[in-house]
């Protein structure tokens, strides 16, 4: 892995929509994580700062840079990570 991300912090941009946006009280935030970090690490951190996320954790899926990705995905500096609750378009 890249040496720059094995020590120190990495920052990701988090996007939140619909019910989760209302429950968490924000539509976007920047989160600094200790590197290396996965999607699950990000969710753990967000859950500590925003307890409202806990109820949605079983059904939230992550999109990393606009593509669905498993929580095991390693995050990189500057990634855009969206929290996607079950969608209801159409």
């Amino acid at each position, binding site marked *: 892995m890249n040496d720059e991300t094995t020590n120190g912090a990495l920052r990701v941009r988090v996007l939140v929509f619909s019910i989760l946006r209302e429950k968490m009280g924000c539509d976007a935030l920047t989160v600094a994580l200790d590197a290396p970090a996965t999607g699950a690490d990000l969710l753990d951190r967000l859950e500590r700062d925003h307890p409202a996320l806990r109820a949605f954790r079983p059904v939230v899926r992550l999109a990393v840079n606009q593509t669905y990705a*498993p929580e095991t995905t390693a995050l990189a500096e500057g990634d855009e990570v969206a929290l996607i609750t079950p969608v*209801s378009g*159409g």
Partner: protein
Amino acid sequence: MTRPRTTDDARVETGRLSIRLVHEPIDVAEAAAFLADPRAGGLDLFIGTTRRWTGDAETLELSYECYAPMAVKEMRRLAEEAMARWPLVRACIRHRLGTVPPAEASVLIGVAAPHRAEAFEACRFLIDRLKRQAPIWKREAYADGRLEWVQGERPPDLPGLDTGS
């Protein structure tokens, strides 16, 4: 609010594929015109509309919120999957954002294919997959004053785990 950031975020236009997020009423005639093609023997249009009554609950209007750049990418991916599975000549998707009153269209799926069987199948596939995968959410405004975000029955599929239905 989360609205499409730029025009480029809100649409994909290739020769055979047209995908748009729109804030105004969906233009059905325009979509049908896009699908017209001498190689096609059938056009199939699905139009999803705001339903006023769900059981005893009266809906005054729906509001749609969207992660626009990803929604467009995901709808494009689904359309390309449909084009790989069926011999489609053209396909189009329109999804309206913001407020949609009863009886008005919130979504349109259109496909053109040489024969009707594949047109019906591909159209059904696209609306079913869109409703599971596209990062778009609707909020019901009920006549009794409640505002309620609708949550899909299941989370979206991750890449490589597609169920195809």
